């Protein structure tokens, strides 16, 4: 007797009971994870928001309730807050756009069935596996004005007439940071887009070719619509992650020179551990969090990248 036939013989009441038991068991299995996530994600957020209403010294557990005082100070009397917010925006938009601009053509190239393509795909994804501290050290050395390969290379080919201070000049520090950061994280977008590209049926391209479509038209009318949602999703994710980025900025410039790369996360760190004002740092973190939530919700409403999952 097959299993399907056997199940047919089981009375409906038993079916219902099993289904009900399944739900209970499923819930029980999920409960630890839900509790754990609540504890490690939800609770710290609530804790941070609550404590942003207090004046707390980083090196002192004393707390004085100041209501919205920390917020008023930040928004009304701290030009560095607005300046660092703008720099975070610059860094996030610059990084995301650069990563996208490099990742999409790379993914399209890697999608072709060429000899050695598996090796090329592995190499393209390699930067994502390198720890950020290593990437930071690598770019520090490559970007060194006296000894770095980039500065010397540009001078050798006559594009510059002296050392280039990538991370030591107000003009170049932010663009250099964006490039260093994008070098590592472009691989993430390549992975996402490549995965989507590989799910496009070959027949779509064959049909386009039969209609006489050029390579550009095939890209525009077949590839692009298919990867649109994944690109939108990636834009949201990368935008948020880049807005929150701290590690590579701290490793490469520590927010300098002259605060040229002090983005909001870097400034929050400085408030907490240089100025020792934990309450104010928590208020700035809360503002950053709210900003990203609002931007995320608006973005999801406008573009609905979740439909990617449904298509």
């Amino acid at each position, binding site marked *: 007797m097959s299993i399907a036939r056997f199940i047919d013989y089981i009375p409906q009441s038993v079916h219902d009971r099993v289904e009900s038991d399944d739900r209970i068991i499923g819930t029980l299995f999920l409960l630890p994870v839900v509790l754990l996530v609540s504890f490690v994600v939800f609770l710290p957020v609530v804790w941070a928001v609550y404590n942003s209403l207090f004046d707390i010294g980083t090196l*002192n557990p004393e707390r004085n309730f100041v209501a919205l005082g920390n917020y008023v100070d930040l928004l009304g009397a701290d030009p560095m807050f607005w300046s660092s917010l703008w720099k975070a925006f610059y860094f996030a938009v610059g990084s995301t756009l650069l990563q996208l601009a490099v990742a999409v053509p790379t993914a399209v190239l890697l999608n072709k069935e060429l000899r050695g393509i598996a090796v090329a795909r592995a190499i393209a994804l390699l930067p994502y596996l390198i720890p950020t501290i290593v990437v930071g050290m690598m770019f520090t050395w490559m970007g060194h004005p*006296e000894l770095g390969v980039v500065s010397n290379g540009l001078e050798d080919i006559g594009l510059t007439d002296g050392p280039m*201070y990538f991370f030591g*000049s107000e003009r170049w520090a932010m663009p250099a940071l964006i490039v260093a950061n994008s070098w590592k994280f472009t691989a993430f977008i390549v992975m996402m887009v490549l995965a989507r590209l590989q799910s496009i049926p070959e027949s779509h391209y064959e049909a386009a070719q039969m209609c006489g479509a050029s390579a550009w038209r095939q890209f525009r009318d077949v590839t692009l619509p298919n990867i649109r949602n994944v690109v939108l999703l990636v834009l949201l994710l990368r935008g948020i992650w880049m807005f929150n980025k701290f590690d590579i900025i701290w490793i490469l410039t520590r927010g300098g*020179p002259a605060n040229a790369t002090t983005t909001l996360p870097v400034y929050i760190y400085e408030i907490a*551990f240089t100025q020792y004002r934990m309450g104010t740092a928590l208020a700035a973190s809360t503002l950053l969090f709210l900003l990203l939530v609002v931007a995320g919700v608006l973005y999801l409403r406008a573009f609905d990248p979740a439909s990617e999952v449904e298509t």
Partner: protein
Amino acid sequence: MRSSHTGGSPRKSGATSEFKNRRTFLKGSVATVAGIGLAGCSSNGDGNGSNGSGSNGGGDEAEIHVVTGETNQAAKQWFDRMANQFMQETGIAVTMDYSSLSPTERISTLIQTGNTPELATLDTGQAAQLAFRDQLAGVSELVGTFEDEYGGDVPDNVRLQMDGTDYTVPLWTNPTQVWYWSDVYEEYGLESSAALTWEEYQEIAAEINSDDMYGTVVPSATSSLSSFTFWNFLTSNGGSVASRSDGDVQIALDQGDNKARAVETVEYLNELHEYSPRASDFEWGDILQSFVSRNSAHSIYGPRAKLQVINNTPERKGEVRPHFPVHNGTEQFINNGGGWVLLDGAEYKDEARQFIEFTVRQNRLVDFLTSVAPVHNFPTIAEIAEMDEYRNSEFISENFRERDLEIVQESFEKGISWGGETEPYNQYGPSLFTSQELGTLLYNVNISGKDPEQAVSDTAGRLRDVLSNLQE
């Protein structure tokens, strides 16, 4: 167990109580999640958690928690050895907490989570941050013990004192010198004495400066190294950042004669910058790297420049020598230093005092000073530097000339601390240094091309804001 008791003054008790409630809440949450969510997986089921965070059932075995940022191998070996020997001698456990981040960040985390450590090793600037916020216990009697042990005085220029109370036991000091490549001097036929005038130093830098090697390095970044450089040269010009008026600390950078000295210092460093890499992003590691790789002929720092050469190109170690530039007869630079601090909110303060005493007795400290960045970490008591165990220790006798040691000692004896500009000690001095505003001053003049006089005035204004925040 470290959570059942927190010391401190009555003023703090309210906050501590509130704090305990937070901890209770967190502990309760952890227990709930562990009990409900992880039942049968990893909990031991007794709800007490692990890692000693729960009750110890009434027993109260002391355990000293020590935070240090000294994370190199030699330092770790010394601290581990001290902890083990102390445990064997007293039965009191010592937990070493090596923090690769700034130790004050680690301490702040521990304070905020109610696990205030007993001890830490901090430099004077970091210690001042804690002392300001009433987080340190006085250790004057331990400084006395330290002095008695070695038969000498701990000078004021390495002490952190507030209202006559010491808040550090200064174990080492990092006096400043300028280190140079003597073979390069010989190549150019240049002479050097222990103390060069500013003009002589500038002439030498100009002479050496070439496509192959910079004459010197003038760090010009928003960094502690640049702040350090400016403050050192300002000091050697007889100027000061702060002064006292009617007992109150005030910013003196743009006041009276002092402003002229500050402007002169900035202008001098701006001229010197002509023989330096741009250095607009230089921190401590960069200046060492520039010197060790012979990209520049000088390094303003301490003996660490020589230690780096010993590590990287030992065959050249004999070619690295110190001097210090002076101006208008002022032979004075800055001393930074570091040592033990005792956290006031810690549970086992008496045991921690015993541990401090243990580490400075019976030449154990000499062992530290001859193995952890020797000479760069210079003894704070002159008598230690004279001891046979110190002078004739293998590393020092093999690598440092007698004259080098004398110059280091001289610069230490003549040096002042960040807070030593005023009498009594300016407790805000270390914080004015860590604000990095003085480094920004060099950046603004040497990189952004701002007018020195205006830049000094602007910097003084920003330092007043820093000071006013500290005084609130």
